[in-house]
């Protein structure tokens, strides 16, 4: 049995809508037009222990709803879910003692007092034994380099330092699953790198991470598996490599040549831009023309001064997946 199993989750909200004209506002005091929102239309997936899963989807697609259900905070309209052997929303209190969460935009630390004091309140809430608490705090704060910083009031810390403390707050009670919602948002490069390294290290120690983000670098550097949700439905559930090669096995190539170059006349080769007659960028479909054929042909036609070959960034794939969900074929 997987660590997390989700089957046919459905969530429908009723909300009300009104126009903004004065007449409509007055009318809405007496009668409101009800409106059904289908946040989730029956999604299913499994997650094994020790995974690092990226959860993607456009805003309003149903990501947060799924996460809220998986953290026991929301009841679904129908469907089943099991995590760590519990039903999250029915056995909430016992279940959440084993999970942690970090929200990039909602702080769990108390603003005016040092993070250390917030940690101690958490110790009381999760009923962590003193010895275990101290050694865990020591190891986490050492890993993240905040041993001294955590004694200063939260409002004095930079965003990066604060995020590190949020991670400690979420992991003091040794959770087996940690949910991350935009953990690197607004952070500078160095802070992002430290946070990512920390996540990878903890994942290596066996902690399962479920990462929701719009930062594609986070996805590329951390996630081994990606789930994409759009309009309440699962549109992609597979490894990162498959995401990259969604539109086939392609590469981006940039050629800098000695002399101007015309069309190379190869199948599956498309020019994407031309900085000048001698500086051209291509997209090559390796399924149609192999890389050595391309290099050979380029050598025939011109003298290569410089060449760079790159992976297709997953941005393009993500954008496609975020558009109309219904028209795309599901990944096998």
């Amino acid at each position, binding site marked *: 049995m997987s660590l997390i199993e989700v089957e046919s989750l459905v969530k429908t909200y009723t909300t009300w809508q009104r126009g903004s004209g004065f007449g409509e506002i007055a009318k809405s005091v007496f009668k409101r037009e009800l409106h059904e929102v289908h946040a989730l239309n029956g999604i299913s997936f499994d997650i094994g222990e020790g995974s690092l899963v990226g959860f993607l989807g456009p805003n309003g697609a149903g990501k947060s709803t799924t996460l809220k259900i998986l953290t026991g905070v929301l009841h679904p309209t129908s469907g089943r879910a099991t995590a760590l052997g519990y039903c999250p929303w029915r056995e909430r209190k016992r279940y959440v003692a084993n999970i942690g969460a970090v929200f990039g935009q909602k702080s769990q630390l*108390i603003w005016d007092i040092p993070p250390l004091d917030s940690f101690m309140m958490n*110790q009381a809430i999760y*009923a962590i034994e003193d010895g275990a608490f101290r050694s865990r705090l020591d190891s986490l704060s050492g890993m993240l380099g905040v041993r001294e910083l955590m004694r200063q009031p939260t409002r004095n810390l930079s965003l990066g330092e604060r995020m590190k403390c949020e991670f400690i707050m979420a992991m003091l009670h040794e959770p087996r699953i940690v949910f991350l919602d935009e953990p690197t948002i607004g952070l500078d490069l160095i802070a992002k790198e430290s946070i990512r390294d920390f996540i990878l290290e903890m994942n290596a120690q066996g902690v399962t991470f479920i990462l929701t983000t719009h930062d594609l670098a986070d996805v590329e550097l951390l996630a081994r598996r990606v789930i994409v949700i759009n309009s309440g439905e699962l549109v992609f559930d597979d490894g990162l490599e498959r995401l990259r090669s969604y539109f086939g096995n392609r590469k981006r190539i940039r050629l800098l040549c000695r002399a101007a170059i015309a069309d190379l006349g190869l199948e599956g080769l498309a020019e994407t831009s031309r900085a000048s007659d001698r500086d051209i960028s291509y997209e090559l479909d390796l399924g149609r023309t192999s890389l050595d054929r391309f290099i050979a042909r380029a050598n025939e036609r011109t003298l290569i001064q410089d060449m760079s070959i790159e992976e297709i960034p997953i941005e393009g794939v993500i954008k496609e997946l975020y558009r109309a969900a219904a028209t795309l074929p599901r990944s096998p």
Partner: protein
Amino acid sequence: MGSARSMLMLFSRAARGSMAKAAAYRGDFIVGLVVALLFEFLTPLATILIYRSSAMTGFPGWKMEEVLVLQAVFLISRGIAFPLFFGLVWVVFESVREGRFELILLRPRSPLLVALSQGLDMPGFVRLLGGLALLLWSAGRMGGIQARSILPFLLMLGLSALTLFSCALFMAGSLFVWVGNSRVSELLDSILLFAQYPGSIFSSGLQLVLAAVVPVSMVALFPAEVLLGRPDALVLPGIGASLAFFALGLGFWNFMRGKYAGAGG
């Protein structure tokens, strides 16, 4: 960890946190405390003025000192209940409005307990001093209190704090639906006005409502009457009503909180 021990630890950590929070804004905190104390004394002040201008007759059947004891009991009860229970209302108010209430639900404890601990306001207990001072002063002027009234009084005081807790539960519960209603405390203030004066000034119909329907009289009137050794006929039904009111409050909180999480389907 044993459940009682863990609750105690939660309380002590929360207390520590709330003191640290207050200490972070020292100057304004002290002014705020002084002003709060001054506000406490407004109603007793008005009562004294009323008695003085009416040649000390004031409210029929009540000496001025007895009314002041009543108002002191009100302050004491509020001084106990507000720091303990009313932070809950503001915690729910802010976290629901900002969409952060989920953070409370992520904790492996009852959300009520977590929200109460986040709302604990230790420095607020200082306001108890005002009530105690007024009680000692008025009781002194009356020649003291019967020793045998003290234990029953303390029990009634417990019920009084429980009634105020119920009010906090209703207020907090309502904020799940009436999100961002910052005037909910004005509603409480206007209801509590009825708790600060001798019940005999109200019509008998109203007195019944205040004892048995929304047990406002339990907040100060009944404990004060017990302390003064002059309980009236409505005290006994009042006790039952305040217990029922508490059960209703808890039920309301659980129901509204469940609705917020979509438990109703």
